[in-house]
């Protein structure tokens, strides 16, 4: 029997594309960890509130929310340690950062009131990822939890959330951005006075595309962040160190759909390029059908049993059995191919359940698969 995926780790990061049930997988994993005695927090950045739905909770905000023992008890799950869930809000996380690092009230107000900043979270690539790792660091540093399960934002790129913090800071801090906005910043608010030929050529061209006023707003935004970079950078460095440390395990989450498999392969390569190893591949919603359901003998028995019904009924039953068997076979093939491509990666298969997998009953049904540690 293999050890649980969180064995010896304090943080488990689940990565995958959208639509594979990453949130469900993360929540079931967290239930399993709490059931085996780890004080566990599951975190997601997800505007669609899947985690709240899955845990049967109303929306919950930037603070952790405890899942009570008696919510899970009816489904036969006994938590041996507390379980919390958290859904960091991207905008709030940034606001908190600004409030913490702004050198003075004036600067704080200027940033919070800036139009570009207000759309920052919806606009800037990586802001969700930034908020995720920022919060991760905060809860990790609190020391309150034995284990944090992080459900990363759906992404086409496994390392987005690793790179997001430094990318955002690099962008804001780099001399060249300052250079781009210099004509606006130095020449006073609305003037386009030429200070630097190269800089103003580019500024004017961009201004022609986006409107000169946009540049002014941007200048205000970028300048607003001056003086805060060191604080941001320091935190980003710590997050980065944490993610690269032995405390953290990375899992890939996939469905059986072949379309996702290229992404899994790519994610693994991207993580490897950062020196990060994938601990397990979790395949969600695997259809499982006993092999004998479409044997000639079974199908014959089905036809015999249903002969009192309309002739169409037996055909329908046989057709349905063949279809279920074909779906299961397709899943088996897909998983085998994926496992072969990924090589020596431990695989955890979660079965498709009869119902939908977004409530406590389903999480309870899935959690043992993380405890048994089946192959």
């Amino acid at each position, binding site marked *: 029997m293999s050890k649980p995926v969180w064995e010896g780790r304090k943080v488990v990061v689940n990565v995958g*594309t*959208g*639509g594979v049930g990453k949130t469900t997988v993360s929540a079931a994993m967290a239930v399993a960890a709490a059931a085996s005695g780890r004080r566990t927090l599951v975190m997601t950045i997800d*505007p*669609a509130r*899947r985690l709240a*739905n899955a845990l049967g909770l109303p929306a919950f905000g930037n603070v952790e929310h405890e899942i009570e023992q008696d919510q899970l008890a009816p489904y036969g799950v006994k938590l041996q340690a507390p379980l919390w869930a958290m859904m960091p809000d991207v905008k709030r996380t940034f606001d908190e950062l600004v409030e913490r690092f702004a050198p003075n009230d004036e600067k704080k107000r200027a940033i919070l009131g800036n139009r*570009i900043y207000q*759309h920052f979270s*919806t*606009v*800037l*690539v990586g802001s969700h990822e930034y908020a995720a790792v920022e919060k991760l660091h905060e809860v990790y540093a609190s020391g309150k939890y034995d284990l944090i399960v992080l459900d990363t934002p759906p992404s*086409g790129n496994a390392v987005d959330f690793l790179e997001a913090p430094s990318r955002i800071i690099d*962008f804001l801090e780099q001399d*060249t*951005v300052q*250079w*781009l906005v210099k004509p606006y910043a130095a020449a006073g608010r609305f003037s386009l006075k030429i200070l630097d030929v190269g800089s103003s*050529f*580019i500024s004017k*061209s*961009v201004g*022609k*595309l*986006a*409107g*000169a*006023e*946009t540049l002014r*707003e*941007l200048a205000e935004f970028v300048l607003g962040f001056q003086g805060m970079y060191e604080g941001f950078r320091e935190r980003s460095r710590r997050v980065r160190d944490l993610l690269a440390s032995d405390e953290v395990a990375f899992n890939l989450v996939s469905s059986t*759909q072949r*379309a996702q498999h290229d992404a899994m392969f790519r994610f693994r390569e991207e993580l490897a390029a950062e020196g990060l190893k994938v601990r397990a591949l979790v395949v969600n919603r695997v259809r499982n*059908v*006993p092999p*004998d*359901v479409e*044997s000639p003998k*079974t199908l014959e028995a*089905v036809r015999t*049993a*249903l002969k*009192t*019904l*309309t002739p169409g*009924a037996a055909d*329908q*039953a046989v057709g*349905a*059995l063949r*279809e*279920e068997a*074909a779906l299961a076979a*397709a899943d088996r093939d897909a998983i085998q191919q994926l496992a072969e491509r990924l090589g020596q990666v431990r695989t955890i298969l979660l079965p*498709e359940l*009869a*119902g*939908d997998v*977004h409530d406590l009953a389903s999480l309870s049904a899935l959690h043992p698969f993380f405890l048994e540690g089946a192959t």
Partner: protein
Amino acid sequence: MAFSPRLRVVTGKGGVGKTTVAAALALAEARRGKRVLLAEVNGRDRAAHLLGVEPTGSKLTAVLPNIALVDMNPRDTLREYVLLTFKFETVYKAVFENRVVKNFLRLTPSLGELMMLGKIWHHEREREDDQPRFDVIVLDAPATGHAIAMLRAPSVVQATVPAGPLRENARNMDQLLRDTARTTVHVVTTPEEMPVNEAVEIERAVDDELGMRIGTTFLNQRVSALVPEIVPILDSSAITDTSLASAARVLHAREQRRIGGEQNLQRLPHKMLRDSVSIPRIVAADFGRRSLEAIADVIVPALAREADQ
């Protein structure tokens, strides 16, 4: 009068079959004799794979009779746009391939989305021999959240970007999107809980907030009901014939899932359910062009019915 939209925006939760439906929709329109542009967004050429044609990338290419295909991405679309605006490749290279400017453009509210919508807008107006170049554009839009962000982009730009060419473009696009005679949004969902939740979410955003038209909804991978007696009979026969036990169990689980799925679908707004098309689940190891044509068979009659909606 027949409803004949110029722009069909296809969206839904990730993994529900948006690209499949969008491609089948394009085939269906082409069968009606329309000249179709099928436009993907960051699609990694999935539509091309499904249609069994050469990948086009971001280069708009005629791939089948009456069907042109393009897979847009913000970067190439911006480049195209800038070249249209400035006319000089050298300006583009000097200015827009500058690392800082690239970052700046990422920071400008909704610019990437706006650029791609701008391309759609451009092709909608494009004329050849005094006729529209395309009769209909099928936009295989991103998944729910990103699709809503994309459709919202023109409003965001109008709210955040001061007067200038960008804002002017945003206004034009907004007009196209909100013109219910020209633009319609198709939601794709499977009978699962989360896809249905997102379908409801899209409907709310599109209908209430953006004031756009919701067209035919596609209920993908819908499973038809078994004759009700089948499972009970197999269950009771299994007592004497054990070979039936797993068959009974498998069909029972299938029915449970189907019923759960139907209950999910019932949560869709009435109007969406009424104007919906069910696409049966297709189990094919080689899902491709042939499967798409089979789905187009189901879509064609639905397009004819659209006029009455």
